[in-house]
């Protein structure tokens, strides 16, 4: 798959964060923390990725009774391919923001 110009830096960050999870599920709040993207940007972005067939979503049953189920996310096979083809830009603030959270 070719490198696409249509992905914004924020989208690349989210793709990279999901790719780092290597097939396991992520929560929206965690993604916001890891990427440093505001929740107001993150959720429309996740919708967009799901619409494109790059993101798989599921409802996770509550861990304790009385708590609501949580919506969880991971990349589809196509999403993994796209994430690899569209890494975070080599320079710029987006890369550093992802690294900051990882340390």
């Amino acid at each position, binding site marked *: 798959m070719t490198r696409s110009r249509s992905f914004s830096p924020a989208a690349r960050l989210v793709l990279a964060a999901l790719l780092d999870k290597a097939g396991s599920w992520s929560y929206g*709040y965690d993604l916001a923390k890891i990427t440093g993207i505001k*929740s*107001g940007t993150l959720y429309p972005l996740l919708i967009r990725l799901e619409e494109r067939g790059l993101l798989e979503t599921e409802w996770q049953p509550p861990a304790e009774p009385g708590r609501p189920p949580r919506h969880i996310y991971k990349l589809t096979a196509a999403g993994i391919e796209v994430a690899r083809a569209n890494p975070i830009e080599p320079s710029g603030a987006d890369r550093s923001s992802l690294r900051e959270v990882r340390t």
Partner: protein
Amino acid sequence: MIRRTVRKLSDRLLVQLVGLAPAHLRDWAEAVRSEAAAIADDGEALRFAAGAGSGLALTFIKVRLNDALGLASGRTGPRRLAALAAIAAVMIGVVHLHVADAASSLILVNIASLGVGLALLAGAAVWRGLPESARSIAAMIMAGLLVLTSLFGVSSDGVVRWVAAGPLLVQSSLILLPALLMMFARKTTAAGAVALVVGAVAMAMQPDRAMAGAMVAGIAMLWLLHRNWQVKIALAASALGFVATMVQADNLPPVRFTEGVFTQTWQVHPLLGFAVASAGALLLLPAAAFGTRDRNCARQCAVFGATWLAIILAAVIGHYPTPLVGYGGSAIIGYLLSACMLPPTPLARQGLDSAGKPSARAQPDNLARLFPRRTSCA
């Protein structure tokens, strides 16, 4: 305690967000609600909910608007959108005229003009079916009418812009010039360039800074998207025409209910001012919605937008007619006549290019429907 109360309040708002969500996106609103509930810190949960809630609310509104206007399904193309915008703007204008105690005859003229304009729009298919030679002749006739208006039209304080139609004065340039520009935007023929050169001369003679400026704006936009010698000549002529209008005196006093409407309505009531300003913005909706969404109709939509934006700006900064919202049938008919030259539906959705041939860039995917990608119009 306060934070807990605010958190409960935010949860209530998120429940409302679930109600606002289109059916296929409802899970996302529920997702934010449950995610916020899982965050232990009240302040953090509140920030998260407020941010995600507002982001999703905007997305949901956008999707619902797209559905309501038929943009997502392809039911509404630029032409239909222009008709809807015109109807909404004229209706807001009617409210403005009523609130401002204008005579009911003024309101009737605007409504009748809307009827005439919509009838023209309904017959747009006939226009599009005409052979190129007939269109060239029509363009030359329109340009000739502009010159005739400048020579023999009704004069006021040395300015000659109107033609008497019974008890009404019609500003021919406001009706014909945007349509001429749109014809040229569709196909930049030599005849079209000549018609625009003649039109530029007519604007310089009247003199009419607003329409001369609109001409420059429309052709300059075309120059950005499609450069050839015809556009170059038209642009040079329109720029010279505009300069000629600027060096001539144009001191007509403002006409009540027609000019200065954008600024005066704010003084009557902020809500009215906002409604009138919104109506002005609505007129640009076809350009905003399709100017960058669909490469094949971008040219016509962008020229349409640039032309009417210039006319609106002229009405804001000078004593020139306020299109569609103020009293005046010429702008209403002119807007809808120029909208006749807009594509009826996005050509890419039909799998066609502007020449009617199969397009390489056909059906946009679901994502593009939801979040149209900004593409180059060039």
